[in-house]
């Protein structure tokens, strides 16, 4: 019996955002946008979903006069990401 893949993470854009945040202490919204190539609207929606799931935190502030949105992965998000990768490995090893 294969473990069920987390539906929150099993989406291309959300997974990319989580992958970036899993390897970084924090990242700007604009950095995530640049790295993923997503539109602002789409990225905002996916970030909201990850925030609602408790996988990331979003902090709004200012850098000089410019608004700045910073995203960070939470311990729950790290755990979910780790479990997701483990599940993927199980799928692949079973298929090999």
């Amino acid at each position, binding site marked *: 019996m294969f473990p069920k893949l987390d539906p929150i993470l*099993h*989406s*291309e*854009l*959300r*997974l*990319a955002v989580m*992958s*970036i945040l*899993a*390897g*970084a*202490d*924090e*990242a*700007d919204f*604009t*950095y995530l*946008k*640049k*790295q*993923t*190539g*997503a539109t602002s609207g*789409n990225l905002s*929606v*996916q970030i909201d979903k990850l925030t609602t799931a408790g996988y990331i935190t979003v902090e709004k502030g200012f*850098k*000089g006069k*410019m608004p700045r949105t910073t995203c960070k992965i939470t311990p729950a998000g790290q755990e979910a990401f780790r479990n*997701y*990768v483990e599940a*993927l*490995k199980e*799928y*692949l090893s079973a*298929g090999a």
Partner: protein
Amino acid sequence: MEQNKEMTAQESLNLISETMNNSRKEIVRNSGKYFVLWGVLLTVFSLLVYFLWKTTGKVAWNNLWFALPLIGYPLSRWAKNKEKDSRAENFISRINGGIWGTFGVFACSVALFSVLYSQFFDSPLTTIVLGVTLSPQIVLLFGMAETISGITLKNWTIKIAGWITGIGGLAIFYIAQVGAEQMLIFTFAGIVLTATGLIVKHQYK
């Protein structure tokens, strides 16, 4: 990138691996410019102090060093604020920032202590003990910071360059008993720091 695209397990793993790798490279490559900035400043200041000390014979020109952080710190803040389009930090960039920040604090503190001590407790002994040993102390701190950067960046060239600058600088200072020429040890350190920035930019391309 789409949020509803159906991915296979292999595609998901590839996406994770590729995204993490690209992001890591981007963050570390970006930190290269700070090495270049401080490296160029160190080179320019060391040559300037060397020239003034050599031509006038006045050791007091060394006080110019205190202008280095006063110019360098606002410049690096400005460079950081210029990154308006994107910013992220990871373990390597944070550790490297910490290493060089600590080096700066220690180098400035040692220099300030040395200057103040010699002002208030002026004696030939002070000059011998503090005046003579300040440069090797700072060059040794520099070598350590550079070597640790090489360890975090997993780059042997940077590790060896740090060791050569720290230990080599120390050896040259004591063996050659240099005067104003000791500033050239810092010129070498500045070149090493600039080269480190360029290596980082190249390694994480």
